[in-house]
């Protein structure tokens, strides 16, 4: 035969790549995520490298007292202090600052305008109502959103696959019991539980992840269950049973690879739903603890300072671009995995 044999998943990938919008959305999204992972190099209130009086320091990983650079206090250095800046850039000394010299919680004490201040040469996207740099907040907020969504998606997907597989494969009473459990579990008021828990326990990203994961697996498990129910009737599964394969082998080798289409198709949409969930919880003040950079919290600031248009507008833009990229990817993925669209 002339061309190489491609597995069905490889062929789906080829089809995905042929969808330019989806493919470039994936590339761009991955690039943004990778960049946000290195956010400390892009946006930070400490210089990356300082050469001071013949010695090299890496303030990113070192805590240096101000006295080292000729300051008065033993406290950690504020590298945005004009005096320190003067000290470490004078003469032979030099320092490399990140492109955006603010961290997510850095207060700009030396701002020219009152907070929230409009975009300027100092703060490219302006500051929020506490004087924190908006660009830095957006970068870190994006990172937390994406990482949180990724974790939530992975946990929810794994839980969904496992529960769906058990229900679909064993069927009968197992299925019946699980379905009733899901109905009861699914009718619990998620939002009120979140409110109650955030009142009782100290809010944290971990707690939020656990709470949202507890409810996030049900939709997917239904799809996996349906796929399993369908596929286990097919002759190749019967043939495998006649061959004497164990339940585990049949699930792992035969059913799982053939039942993952809806799982993969839903991944980007689950991601965007998770990002939205975190954002809206933060907006309501039920999400991550105060002081954590978050898109939802920025939106709520935008709402409270409606004339500080740069807050709401830039946060809105970041959210729209993120969700749009995910949706484009999801659309392309859905087309690529559509069994009715065979590639010719």
């Amino acid at each position, binding site marked *: *035969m002339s061309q190489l044999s491609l597995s069905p*998943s490889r062929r789906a990938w080829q089809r995905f790549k042929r969808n330019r919008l989806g493919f470039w959305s994936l590339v761009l999204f991955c690039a943004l995520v990778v960049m946000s992972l290195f956010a400390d190099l892009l946006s930070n209130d400490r210089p990356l490298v300082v050469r001071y009086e013949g010695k090299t320091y890496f303030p990113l990983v070192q805590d240096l007292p101000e006295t080292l650079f000729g300051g008065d206090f033993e406290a950690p250095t504020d590298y945005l202090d004009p005096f320190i800046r003067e000290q470490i850039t004078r003469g032979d000394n030099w320092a490399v600052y990140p492109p955006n010299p603010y961290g997510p919680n850095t207060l700009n004490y030396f701002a020219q305008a009152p907070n929230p201040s409009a975009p300027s040469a100092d703060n490219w996207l302006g500051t929020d109502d506490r004087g924190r740099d908006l660009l830095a907040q957006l970068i870190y907020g994006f990172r937390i959103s994406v990482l949180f969504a990724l974790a939530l998606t992975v946990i929810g997907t794994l839980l969904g696959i496992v529960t769906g597989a058990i229900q679909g494969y064993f069927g009968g009473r197992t299925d019946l019991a699980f379905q009733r459990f899901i109905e009861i579990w699914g009718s619990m008021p998620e939002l009120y539980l979140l409110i109650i828990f955030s009142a009782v326990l100290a809010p944290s990203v971990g707690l939020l992840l656990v709470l949202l994961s507890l409810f996030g697996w049900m939709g997917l498990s239904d799809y996996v269950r349906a796929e399993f129910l369908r596929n286990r009737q097919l*002759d190749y599964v019967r*043939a495998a049973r006649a061959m004497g*394969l164990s339940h585990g082998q049949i699930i792992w080798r*035969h059913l799982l690879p053939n039942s993952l289409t809806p799982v993969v198709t839903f991944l980007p949409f689950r991601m965007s739903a998770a990002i939205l969930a975190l954002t809206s919880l933060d907006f309501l003040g039920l999400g991550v603890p105060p002081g954590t950079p978050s898109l939802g919290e920025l939106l709520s600031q935008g709402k409270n300072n409606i004339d500080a248009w740069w807050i709401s507008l830039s946060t809105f833009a970041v959210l729209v671009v993120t969700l749009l990229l995910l949706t484009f990817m999801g659309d392309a993925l859905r087309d690529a995995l559509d069994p009715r669209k065979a590639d010719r």
Partner: protein
Amino acid sequence: MTALLSLRGLTVAFNGTPVVHGIDLDIQAGEKLALVGESGSGKTVSALSLLRLVEGAQVSGQALLEGRDLLALSGPQLRAVRGDEVAVIFQEPMTALNPLQTVGAQIAEVLQLKRGLNATDARRAVVDLLVSTGIAEPQRRAGAYPHQLSGGQRQRVMIAMALASRPRLLIADEPTTALDVSLRGQMLDLLSDLQREYGMAVLLITHDLNLVRRFASRVAVMERGHLVEQGAVAEVFAAPRNPYTRQLLASRPVRDLQETPVPPGQAPVLSARDLGVSYPVPLPGLRGWFRRGRFDAVRSVQFALARGRTLGVVGGSGSGKSTLALAALGLLPHSGQLAVEGTDWEAARRGGASRALRRRVQVVFQDPFSSLSPRMTVEQIVGEGLLVHEPTLHEADRQARVVDALRDVGLLQAGEDPAGWLQRYPHECSGGQRQRLAIARALIVEPRVLVLDEPTSALDVTVQQQVLGLLQRLQRERALSYLLITHDVDVIRAMAHEVLVMKEGAVVEHGPALDVLSAPQHPYTQELVRAAL
């Protein structure tokens, strides 16, 4: 005399790839024309594309219905033609009917739309139409939903619906394929009667030459999008001019078996005594809350399958023959005795020895597209049995065994490099190749019994003959025993030493295959044999 419908250079293409290459065909008014071909020959596509019922098809050429070019009509004009002058009945009546409406309402809709009847007249006409299709209790059936009808009744409803508008041309796309064998004859007779009564032309699309011989006056043979031969049925069948037509006509399965009697005293490899299989079914009403009823799919079946012999099991759908196959594979619990080389399945299951028994009995299923996992390579599929039954086998040895198995089933010629085949995926194989793969997967663990569940009914006739030939050769070479489940009397005639005829879960006739087929005793067997002629 001008034809009712004449196709001139009809070409159908998908995404620029032509699948029908300029066919010329005339259908006279009141004529019975059969369009024959194997799957992928373009017979359905060319017929349905006339009414633009094929999605994504680019149709060119001319299709003149009484001088009007169907292909040049606008959408509304074409809709007037569809179902009015030209009606279609499809292969699968279940999916062609709306499950949420009574069949009477669906037929009445056609009458109201196409013949302008009011609701009362339409209701009366519906019953008349149903009467003409010979359906039992037409009054009551008109109020039934599709799922309440049997396959044959549904097809009759489809026919009634197609006739509602008194079409000039009826396109029947494999109208009997989804039906039970014993019903096929009746359905063709019905079509013939109605054709005479209504004076319409019928274009029968089929792959079944028996149907053509029985039904049509003229036949057109298609091969890969070309019309290779057409003419009167008697002439074409008696003296086919085209080599492909000859090949089609010659592709009835041939009997080539070990015919010597079984040596006396030899123990059977698979035997059943008083075998029964039942399913739990929900009971109606309040009782269903507390108890479940049982449905006996197979009742008190008795047989003994000798080494190197074939036991054919024939019957219509719902006769329990596939349940019997699953029970023989040890996949269903059973009552009575069902023993593989003397070991009963139930006893093996209790003793935890069923895995060893599984090696003795393997299976080849009907549908070659669902019987191979689409995400595994040929090597993984065929080699899987060895992973289970000979887990200590070295990987290189396993691969060698896979290659041997592929050679045995004729997928690899001697000296051919196996690398290309081992890494292939099922979607890259044709139906016949997939069925050979399924056979190789079963053979690799060296079973004694092969359960063949309709092994060839999803295949084209020419491929069917090759696969049956392969099975016959393997049986002679390895003294394999086959439990052959089929609805096809031709296959039984070619393959089976003995035959069980099943109806509604019970055996109605049992005996040497050729005797039973030449002199059937039970009325059901007689019906089956007659339908196959």
